[in-house]
């Protein structure tokens, strides 16, 4: 009996703590209204959606729109003043920052993992094998321990932040075969690999779920724990960018992302918090 009581009280306390933190992080939005336009990196979208949902439920006078497009689109559109916040899965270049006067906020860390179809028996590759697969030197799964089927490569478009990190840190800036199929978002990559038993591609670790199988790189599985402790090296910051110092709703939104509640959302979507 006393045991049950203890459980009851501790649960109640936990709940009230959760409610209090959420309430305080969201309180700042009470007096606000207007539209906040967000676009860019596709890895960011699950977190953006959740945060926007919480804010809009708290205060229905605020409308937040979220679009994809890729990191390049995010940086370009925020620079041109078309949107309020541009998301990028890479740092903006010096040129971009000076040209547009951009202000970057890093609110989470994300790994980029190689994925294959769950039916594929290959679960581990070395960096060299990965390089040779993507450059088109290895073209059959049997060369890396799989079945006798030719490999279907999936790559991202040049504006992708996920691609730029993968290319730099996993492929060491090696050539990518011109025969690679190209898809336009993390979500599209996951759908493509989930549907293609002989495909190989890469997504943000936050996007890996049961429909695709992660591939260990040099023996390290791309999961949250390995990205967090630094064992898995193919990782990057997730940035949200404003033109100049953020003001108004954009500032509140970025502060919310960095608040305990915002960081909790990022963790629940498979990213690593920065606070």
């Amino acid at each position, binding site marked *: 009996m006393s045991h049950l009581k203890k459980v009851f009280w501790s649960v109640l306390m936990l709940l009230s703590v959760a409610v209090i933190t959420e309430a305080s992080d969201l309180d700042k939005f009470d007096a606000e209204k207007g539209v906040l336009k967000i676009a860019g990196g596709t890895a960011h979208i699950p977190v953006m959606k959740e945060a926007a949902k919480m804010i809009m439920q708290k205060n229905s006078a605020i409308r937040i729109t979220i679009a994809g*497009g890729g990191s390049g689109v995010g940086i370009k559109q925020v620079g041109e003043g078309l949107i309020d916040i541009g998301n990028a899965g890479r740092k903006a270049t010096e040129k971009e920052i000076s040209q547009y006067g951009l202000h970057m906020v890093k609110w989470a860390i994300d790994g980029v993992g190689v994925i294959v179809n769950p039916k594929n028996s290959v679960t581990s590759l070395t960096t060299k094998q990965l390089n040779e697969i993507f450059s088109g030197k290895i073209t059959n799964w049997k060369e890396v321990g799989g079945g006798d089927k030719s490999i279907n490569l999936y790559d991202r*478009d040049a504006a992708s932040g996920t691609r730029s990190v993968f290319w730099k840190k996993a492929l060491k800036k090696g050539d990518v*075969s*011109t025969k690679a199929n190209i898809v336009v978002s993390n979500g599209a990559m996951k759908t493509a690999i989930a549907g293609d038993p002989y495909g190989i591609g890469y997504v943000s670790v936050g996007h890996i779920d049961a429909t695709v199988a992660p591939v260990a790189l040099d023996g390290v599985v791309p999961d949250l724990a390995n990205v967090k402790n630094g064992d898995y090296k193919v990782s990057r910051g997730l940035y949200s960018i404003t033109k100049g110092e953020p003001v108004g709703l954009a500032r509140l939104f970025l502060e919310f992302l960095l608040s305990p509640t915002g960081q909790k959302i990022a963790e629940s979507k498979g990213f690593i918090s920065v606070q």
Partner: protein
Amino acid sequence: MRLLSRLSVTVFRLAAFGSGLLTIAVFLMMLSFGWPLLTDGQFFTLLAGEWNPANGLFGIYPMVVGSISIAFLALLFSLPVSLGTSFVATVLAPPPVRRFVLGIIRFMAGVPTVIYGFVAVFMLVPFMREQITGGSGLNILTAAIVLAVLIAPTMIVFFVSGLKNVKPEYCLAVDALGARPVQKLIFLLIPQAWPSIVSGIIMGLGRAMGDTLISLMLAGNSIAIPASVSDSGRTLTAHIALVIAADFSSMEFKSIFACGLVLYIFTVIVVVALRWVSPGQDLRSI
């Protein structure tokens, strides 16, 4: 009342002028953006070269090949089916069947492009991969098949309206001579409806060339020059959609205008050529 009718005539004329001017304005804008490429002769280098920005190559030849092969393959699949359907829907079937077929066609014309792409990703692509082409199933053939389905309603509607608008006097005369439906179709309706059939083909081909989403979702978008229809390929339109996020001042971005110009010029050439070769048409009616 007269004022009202005059006013409406003015409004309609302005609308017609406006849309005409818009087409010209788009061309001029692309020309001005692409002008630096045209003047120093880079345009033709781009047209014949390969695309590999990492190595400083910005050619669009693979995309020109991709666009042309996908569009014409789609037309090749779609034209016989569309012609057949329009014959059935106007002459060859009993009236209730005609109405049913036309109803289906109108419904097909209203289905959003993305639905076709979406369904094809989950149903046609695995089938192509396992049974027909091998590879990833994302290739020129897959995209062309879906595009053929997409452009069929457009063409059928044009064909049907042409076949139905043949002068009733002619039809009565042919019927009075005791012609069978097939004879009526071959010797009267098709020759009379020829201009509409040509227009339908132009509209279909234009839609196939201009479509972005189907090729972006289904053709694979690889930058290699496709060697067969079972290869992954990229169209000019998909290429524009993929590269538009590049830096404004970069060469990648400038090359987009070369793509736009090629698409524009190509469409004009096809329209003029088809009008030219079709009998009973003089060029003034283009």
